[in-house]
């Protein structure tokens, strides 16, 4: 039983290390910013998840395992939020994604042509940023 848990833990650690490395290589080799962001999220989800799973199997049901789960939850939530905000900031800044054309060549494309109305939506303030006007009650002075 111990041996089986050890083997599963080693497999998870090796797989996690592999995917972490793949994400980091993609971070350097991908052609444009959005593709690089896609590669980075591989290491932040699959790589980190497998590494933490491997450590969880080694730790057993202890306080250490609870701390590992906390770390994983924080990593998963902040990673997705940061990626979303980063993509929005990049689009807002006019970063153009590379899209394969008819001839299969990559070309920078204005994102407004891919998603109609994207520019207007990006320019509009976020719902959390709009200040709600206090309602005017006519019965009170």
């Amino acid at each position, binding site marked *: 039983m111990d041996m089986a848990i050890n083997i599963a833990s*080693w497999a998870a650690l090796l797989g996690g290390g592999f995917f972490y*490395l793949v994400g980091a290589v993609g971070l350097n080799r991908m052609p444009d910013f959005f593709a690089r*962001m896609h590669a980075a999220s591989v290491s932040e989800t699959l790589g980190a998840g497998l*590494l933490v799973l*491997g450590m969880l199997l080694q730790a057993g049901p202890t306080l250490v395992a609870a701390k590992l789960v906390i770390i994983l939850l*924080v990593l998963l939530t902040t990673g997705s*939020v*940061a990626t979303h905000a980063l993509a929005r900031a990049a689009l*807002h800044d006019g970063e153009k994604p590379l899209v394969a054309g008819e001839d299969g060549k990559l070309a920078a494309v204005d994102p407004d042509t891919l998603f109609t109305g994207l520019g207007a939506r990006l320019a509009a303030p976020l719902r959390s940023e709009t200040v709600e006007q206090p309602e005017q009650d006519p019965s009170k002075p």
Partner: protein
Amino acid sequence: MFQAAIIAVLVSLVLAVWRALAGPTVFDRLLAANAIGTGTILLLALFGFMTGRPEFLDIGILYALLNMIGTLAVLKFFRYGGLGHRGEDEETGA
């Protein structure tokens, strides 16, 4: 096995630093900084397990919280894609 995972994370950190130095846009650098933060947390946890001292996880949790606050602060800073965004006072003020 922890050694292999630590080596993988260390190589990934070097690659992320490379991207942070070379990144053509500021967003590339931010992405790399985020990746470095994640790598640091995992490295701390793995190192603690390798040396048989899982107390290192507390430091990992601390780094995770710092990383979260840092990322959100920087992203709010870059909400308008640059440093030159006018503040509210400047817009409404005379």
